């Protein structure tokens, strides 16, 4: 079989076998509705709470602060709309950043159309926010600060603890989208002063279609999915038991192995960054050199366009992405790359290679070997490359 190298772990991950094994009985043996009191459903309440407990422990949170959702996007929507609605009498101002995931950005834009005001903080060339700018943005009617833990495209990790302190000092609820950070960064909600946090299982080798919102006890927030009394009346809908169980297992595995995971991924990441920037001219790294996700490589390869790169890489079995997977339906260059100051031309040539638990050193070396000729071939076709060729 042709070599296949998956380097798109930030888009989604394969589910681990241990996770699937844990889920299987809940599909058709212990399949009952957890709200039922009979033997097909009864034990499912405890299976759910067991998962809740496992996950809470990995975050230093309490079991009853974990609320399952249908994914990371729903958790982001809930955090923002839920606080906006709960605190609308206190104020209608929200602070976020220009580089959030669309689940945050589009929710904020929706609120703007409904009478709220949103400040979108700038980021520097590395994708970091400026804490002074954050402080200056705070107003008496600010009800929420929503700043992502780690960026899904360029991998930059924000100064979450410092943001937590500022939020607390100003008595403002602090939400962080930690969908990319979870499993890749050690997270302690108390140490970091996080009030609300969105997570998603499919980024940590768990199932798709399940996420959660961490809600610090006492945080004012309204539901966004109304109905049955599930999730302590905060999120309606028959509980997705197999997925919740799988999320718990994936969390457990991720948290047990997190140190090794981080050091292995960091090593492979830096090997890839160094290999590519050494071998290919006119290439530079996006995001922060060290304050970045252990598995994230995001580079701009000048004079060529990302999709043609992806296609060429796909033909040699290398799977990666150009900008966020979620936005690849659109052809506009990524808002994140624009926010760090890239030109359109350069932003179009971005490549995101994200490393995960099944990535080997061989895989990395394969990419370092395969990419340069692909780049050269595409550059030879590019009218933008003509101009620089002379000096080459």
């Amino acid at each position: 079989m042709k070599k296949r190298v998956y380097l798109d772990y930030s888009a989604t991950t394969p589910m681990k076998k241990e996770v699937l094994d844990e889920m299987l009985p809940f599909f058709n043996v212990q399949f009952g509705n957890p709200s039922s009191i009979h033997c097909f459903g009864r034990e499912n309440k405890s299976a759910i709470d067991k998962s809740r407990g496992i996950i809470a422990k990995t975050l230093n949170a309490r079991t009853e602060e974990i609320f399952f959702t249908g994914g990371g996007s729903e958790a982001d929507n809930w955090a923002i709309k839920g606080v906006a609605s709960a605190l609308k009498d206190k104020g209608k101002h929200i602070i976020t950043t220009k580089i959030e995931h669309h689940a945050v950005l589009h929710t904020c834009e929706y609120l703007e159309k409904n009478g709220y005001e949103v400040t979108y903080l700038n980021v520097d060339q590395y994708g970091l926010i400026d804490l002074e700018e954050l402080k200056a943005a705070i107003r008496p009617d600010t009800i929420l600060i929503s700043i992502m833990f780690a960026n899904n495209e360029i991998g930059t990790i924000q100064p979450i603890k410092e943001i937590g302190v500022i939020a607390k000092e100003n008595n403002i609820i602090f939400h962080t989208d930690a969908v990319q950070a979870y499993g890749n960064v050690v997270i302690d909600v108390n140490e970091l002063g996080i009030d609300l946090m969105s997570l998603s299982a499919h980024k940590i080798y768990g199932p798709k279609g399940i996420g959660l919102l961490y809600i610090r006890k006492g945080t004012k927030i309204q539901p966004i999915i109304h109905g049955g009394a599930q999730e302590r009346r905060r999120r309606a809908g028959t509980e997705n038991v197999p997925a919740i169980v799988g999320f718990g297992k994936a969390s457990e595995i991720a948290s047990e192995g997190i140190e090794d995971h981080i050091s292995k991924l960091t090593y492979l990441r830096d090997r890839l960054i160094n290999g590519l920037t050494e071998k290919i001219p006119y290439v530079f790294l996006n995001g922060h050199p060290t304050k970045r996700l252990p598995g994230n490589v995001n580079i701009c390869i000048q004079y060529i366009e990302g999709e043609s790169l992806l296609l060429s890489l796909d033909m040699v079995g290398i799977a990666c992405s150009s900008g966020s997977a979620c936005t690849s339906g659109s052809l506009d260059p990524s808002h994140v790359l624009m926010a760090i100051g890239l030109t359109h031309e350069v932003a179009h040539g971005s490549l995101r290679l994200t490393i995960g638990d099944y990535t080997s050193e061989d895989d990395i070396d394969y990419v370092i070997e395969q990419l340069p000729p692909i780049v050269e071939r595409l550059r030879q076709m590019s009218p933008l490359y003509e101009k620089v060729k002379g000096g080459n």
Partner: protein
Amino acid sequence: MYSDKVMDHFTNPRNVGEIENADAVGQVGNVKCGDIMKMYLKIDNEVIVDVKFKTFGCGSAIATSSMATEMIKGKTVKEALNLSNRAVAEALDGLPPVKMHCSVLAEQAVKSAIYDYAQKNNLHYEELDGYNPNEEDDHHDHGVEEED
């Protein structure tokens, strides 16, 4: 996503390169949208005897450029002016809806090169009446479905 034909023209593009002392050069697209096509023509007695292109862009931008050059090579200038984007897309066994604009770009690259030729040689082609290469729509629709 792409037809085999598209993938073939992307992988083995025909007529890549430049023509020194070309009789006509046209460039369309812009970096904002992520597609630039540059086309070079050698014209002899109203016949396109050689054509080359360079493209910065996605897979279908490269494939449509390649296909368009194949389709106009050996044709008269007038025939080339009648090349439609649909014809290019069809010759490639179709393009995804969001990629149809690439075929439009290929059609325009041809037109733009011939416009250059007409200008240089003081020729008139009625197919170019009303055509202005600088008027090209910067914010052309990428065909993403609208909500209703």
